[in-house]
């Protein structure tokens, strides 16, 4: 039993996803995993690792949950040419010391061929060098810090705060008339500091103004953070925060009647199951969110497959959020890469080469082609969609669009060299 109270909302959400789109209701018949043989793999297991962070103050286990479900489905359908995937997941509990221990355990002791679905920002920062030194790739799914996107051996399927935040600002400038935006983020150098700094540069590049308002992650006085934005005379607030504090700030703004004083935009974190019940009617039609992957109820084949696989092979209490979609598609791309290998010659070196050889694969969950390549940094997903919070749910107001920021210059060079364009 993962926990008591997770089960009810998780089941309710799963039921909601199923009910929301009739196309998803019969998605079991469309389930697709790996070789699709319908026969369980019985050969020598291939060890794959995954590290998440699941302890107060946050649960980032959605990516590894979905990857585990997909690998279970792959194993039930022929595995990797007969070899099952043994997926070993560790929880670093946001503890840097523990993150180092579990990273070493997986990479050195267990000898995993790769890591998939990773969702701990602490582990990412601690183990980036280990992965590079040991020549093992991490196909992550829940990154939010600079190390995730500026390391040779980590490639994340989710965008993280930087592209998603800039995507939100791009929409705000073009559709809402934003001139001066406040980026409210955590006072963490490789998270809020990093992302808000690039937000401001983006605003300057557009002839607009950006202001960073950084706060401690456990800050109590959200009222003053709101008032600070008011004192800065900004016209737009970008909530570069996890869902909890962002909702706290929105509540303060509601208290102050601040909805119409600003335009309100946010990167993905606030796009979360159940957020509608928390936000209520007040914000309906006034909160715009950039989402990194497709909507939960979208009708694409991979999204339907995600819903079907997690429903059948997931565990009670698994999180079904953007990180879950991201972990699912990371696991799918990984599996597809492994299926190109001779099953007798699967080891870390061949797997790393196969992952780096992923170029231009597509999914309806993403807005552009996914790729890895051999580079000192990776950010394959930087185009997103914009939704508006409305009547307790989210409606798409702009479909796939890319961003233009100097941060992506080295990424564009990679894409050009690989013959890709987004």
């Amino acid at each position: 039993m993962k926990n008591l109270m997770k089960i009810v909302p998780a089941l309710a959400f799963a039921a909601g996803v199923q009910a929301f789109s009739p196309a998803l209701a019969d998605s079991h018949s469309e389930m697709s995993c790996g070789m699709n043989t319908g026969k369980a793999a019985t050969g020598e297991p291939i060890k794959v690792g995954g590290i998440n962070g699941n302890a107060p103050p946050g649960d980032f286990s959605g990516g590894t949950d979905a990857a585990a479900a997909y690998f279970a489905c792959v194993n039930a359908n022929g595995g990797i040419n007969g070899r099952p995937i043994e997926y070993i997941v560790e929880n670093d509990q946001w503890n840097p010391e523990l993150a180092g221990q579990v990273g070493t355990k997986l990479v050195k002791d267990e000898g995993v061929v790769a890591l998939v679905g990773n969702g701990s920002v602490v582990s990412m920062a601690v183990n980036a060098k280990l992965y590079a030194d040991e020549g093992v790739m991490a196909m992550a799914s829940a990154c939010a810090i600079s190390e995730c996107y500026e390391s040779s051996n980590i490639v994340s399927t989710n965008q993280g705060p930087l592209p998603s935040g800039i995507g939100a600002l791009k929409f705000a400038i073009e559709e809402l008339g934003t001139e001066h935006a406040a980026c409210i983020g955590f006072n963490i150098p490789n998270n809020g500091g990093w992302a808000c700094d690039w937000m401001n540069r983006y605003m300057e590049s557009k002839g607009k103004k950006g202001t960073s308002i950084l706060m401690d992650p456990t800050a109590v006085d959200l009222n003053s953070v709101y008032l600070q934005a008011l004192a800065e005379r900004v016209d737009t607030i970008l909530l570069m925060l996890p869902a909890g504090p962002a909702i706290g700030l929105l509540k303060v703004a509601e208290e102050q009647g601040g909805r119409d004083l600003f335009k309100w935009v946010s990167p993905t974190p606030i796009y979360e199951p159940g957020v509608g019940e928390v936000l209520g009617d007040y914000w309906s039609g006034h909160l715009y969110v950039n989402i990194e992957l497709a909507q939960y109820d979208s009708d694409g084949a991979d999204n339907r497959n995600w819903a079907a696989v997690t429903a059948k092979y997931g565990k009670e209490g698994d999180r079904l959020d953007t990180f879950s979609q991201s972990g699912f598609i990371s696991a799918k791309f990984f599996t597809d890469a492994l299926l190109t290998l001779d099953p007798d010659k699967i080891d870390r070196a061949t797997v790393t080469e196969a992952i780096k050889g992923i170029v231009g694969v597509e999914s309806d969950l993403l807005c552009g082609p996914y790729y890895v390549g051999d580079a000192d940094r990776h950010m394959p997903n930087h185009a997103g969609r914009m939704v508006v919070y409305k009547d307790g749910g989210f409606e798409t107001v702009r479909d796939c669009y890319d961003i233009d920021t100097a941060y992506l210059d080295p990424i564009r060079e990679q894409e050009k060299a690989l013959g890709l364009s987004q």
Partner: protein
Amino acid sequence: MLNVYGLFLVSGLAVGSLYALGGIGLVILRRSTGVLNFAYGAIAAASAMICWQVVQWGMPGPIAWIVTILTGISLSVLYGRMIAPSLAWRAPTVKAVATLGYTLILLGLIGFVWDDSPRKLELPTDKIGVWILGVRVTVTRLIAFASSIVIVIGVILFFNRTRIGLNMRALADNRDHAALLGIPVIRVETMAWTLSGALAGYTGLLFGDLVRLDPTVITFMVIPATAAAICGRLESLPLTLVGGLAIGVIEAMLALYKPLAPLRSMTPFIVAGCVILWMQRGQHLTFVQGD
């Protein structure tokens, strides 16, 4: 500009009253049992989460509020009766550190029972507000501010005018002497843990509503609450109230000074440090007294 200062002053007082409420709960227990209860925030967090859960189960608000207070009392008395007596003759530091263990247990249990999905705690008084110096202050915030003052006055009267209050003070001064005098130690201590637990539940309810329903944030509210209590030398309730309010106002005002704005969370530590230095002025340091 005056208007801007007014905005932040009112905002700071609203948050400061929450710090003060936490500090008052700590001081009451400290004065009665000699225990500095670092688990106060975790008890408040658990109470707030229970309140949310009861509301989710469809119970009316007043029932949820009562359950919140009862949760605070239960968790506080549980520690006060089961663990605290066996540490009664240990040094104050040992007693305080033991409550940290209880904090971790409660925080772990909260994380086990509830995931980190977004949640919101609402009170009917959130929808009603008045404008003070350009800031809309909800009735909930006014209740937090007023109740911190009322509780200080009430507890002072309780300590000074009632027999049980007298017993509590005697117990805090010297547990052995109090027992020899025939004071029912366990009963009086249980009363103190009950009072402190009720306040923790109440503080958790207000914190969950006014700040955010995040167990970690509510748990670590004990830090500014302890700073407020230190301002009152862990004894004086009026000074604790003033300390809590001052910390809240200074923290809010620092938002106006950009270089220090991201460091506002240091305010409780700096204020507590300055107060300790002020209290120790003219005294010799402990380790050089024998020279």
